[in-house]
């Protein structure tokens, strides 16, 4: 009973005397143990990347996905409990689908992000529910105007709009790097790919298991549709990123 929350951390519907909901904070903690996940809004689209730990040498590469399509022009990358995130992914797909069949237009990213925030928040209100142990980065490109946008939805149900952000283990270091990268407002997804690969390799903790880099984008290269970054492009970017890191290390 006498944990860090002195008994106030057992249910999501009891505040602690200092006004905190521990369960939600613990859920956020679960996100921080996860591999880094980042997304950036480039000039011409959105780029997602995820650091996936290879749990076993016998694991088939590409077997677990952490970036999902939501509809033709939107996707979502995950940090935290993958199984929990599936609820959000499938809810997002339902909302997008239903919106389109009723209102004929594609759901505006702001609207979908807000609805997902509400959905996530519901799981922080009832004793019978457990908050989601995951944070999602939801990115979309408007099919008409080609304007990209990016949102973060955390276990509390908060919705933030970002130009670029990272979640998970290496988020602090990654965010600093993203800030430097986004100093160039004209950068395209294709140009950013190698830098993102570099960030992911840089923030990867040597103590952790080997990792696989998963990347998806919505940009001219993918005909403004959500698609996985082609393997050869990703491989080249990763190789180049490693070279750059090595060169930097040699300078020091």
């Amino acid at each position, binding site marked *: 009973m006498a944990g860090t929350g002195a008994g106030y951390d057992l249910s999501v519907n009891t505040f602690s005397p200092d006004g905190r909901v521990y369960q939600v904070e613990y859920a956020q903690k679960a996100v921080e143990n996860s591999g880094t996940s980042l997304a950036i809004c480039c000039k011409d689209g959105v780029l997602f990347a995820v650091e996936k730990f290879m749990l076993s040498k016998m694991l088939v590469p590409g077997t677990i996905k952490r970036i999902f399509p939501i509809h033709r022009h939107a996707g979502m990358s995950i940090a935290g409990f993958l199984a929990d995130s599936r609820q959000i992914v499938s809810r997002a797909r339902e909302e997008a689908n239903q919106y389109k069949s*009723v*209102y*004929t*237009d594609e759901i*505006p990213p*702001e*609207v979908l992000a807000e609805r997902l925030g509400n959905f996530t928040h519901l799981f922080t209100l009832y004793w019978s529910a457990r908050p989601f142990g995951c944070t999602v980065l939801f990115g979309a490109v408007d099919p008409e105007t080609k304007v990209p946008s990016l949102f973060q939805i955390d276990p509390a149900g908060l919705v933030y709009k970002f130009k670029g952000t990272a979640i998970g283990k290496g988020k602090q270091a990654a965010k600093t790097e993203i800030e430097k990268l986004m100093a160039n407002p004209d950068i395209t997804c294709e140009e950013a790919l190698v830098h993102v690969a570099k960030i992911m390799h840089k923030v990867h903790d040597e103590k952790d298991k080997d990792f696989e880099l998963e990347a998806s984008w919505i940009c001219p290269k993918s005909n403004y549709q959500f698609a996985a970054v082609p393997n050869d492009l990703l491989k080249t970017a990763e190789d180049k990123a490693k070279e750059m890191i090595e060169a930097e290390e040699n300078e020091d």
Partner: protein
Amino acid sequence: MEVIAPRSTAPRREFAKHVEEGCPYRDDDVMAPEKGVSTGTTIMAVEFDGGVVLGADTRTSTGQYVANRASRKITKMDERICVCRCGSAADTQALSGFVQFYLGQHAVELGRPPAVKTCANLFKIFAYNNKDRLMAGMIVAGWDEKSGGQVYNIPLGGSLIRVPFACDGSGSGYIAGLMDKTYRPGMSKAECIEFVVNSVAHAMARDGSSGGMIRTVVITKDGLEETHMEGNKLPFGP
């Protein structure tokens, strides 16, 4: 609908056939709702560069009797979207009410005016899903930021068809040829108004179920402009 209740043993004595059990309307009532107040009508809408013009006559009849000689068949759905209604007045009014409700909610969530196509699609959903029960034809017209002036027709079965100009109601049949002759693509706003008023006036002159005045609405990005033409000042007829 006649209802058989197996649990009640006493035979029910029928003096008059009612439309439905418990319903005050009798089947032989001249005001029976299925015969109902219907907008035997002429309505139309035309698209022009930058907006739309809608027009309608003002006669509402119950059988032979003119129930209202100055009725309003054009209903506002949003600041820049209107609908012309024809068919059963009850059905189209109810439908418009539902769509106003859903479109209003949608506009709040969206934070900007909704698209004309969205409004038309909402009408379509109701019209298609209840096609067995409804007698409702709609012309949805308006202006939105993305696609400018648009006219959509939702005829009886609940299909949704975009057209450069639409005409519906009992009077539309009398002026189909006139409209084909006088319609030109790329008309100005003033020419569109003239086209609408002239067409509707000719329909009213030949269709007994259309008549009275002509109401027109012009919708552009600047909003909605409502005008009317009195029944004794029509370009043709009555």
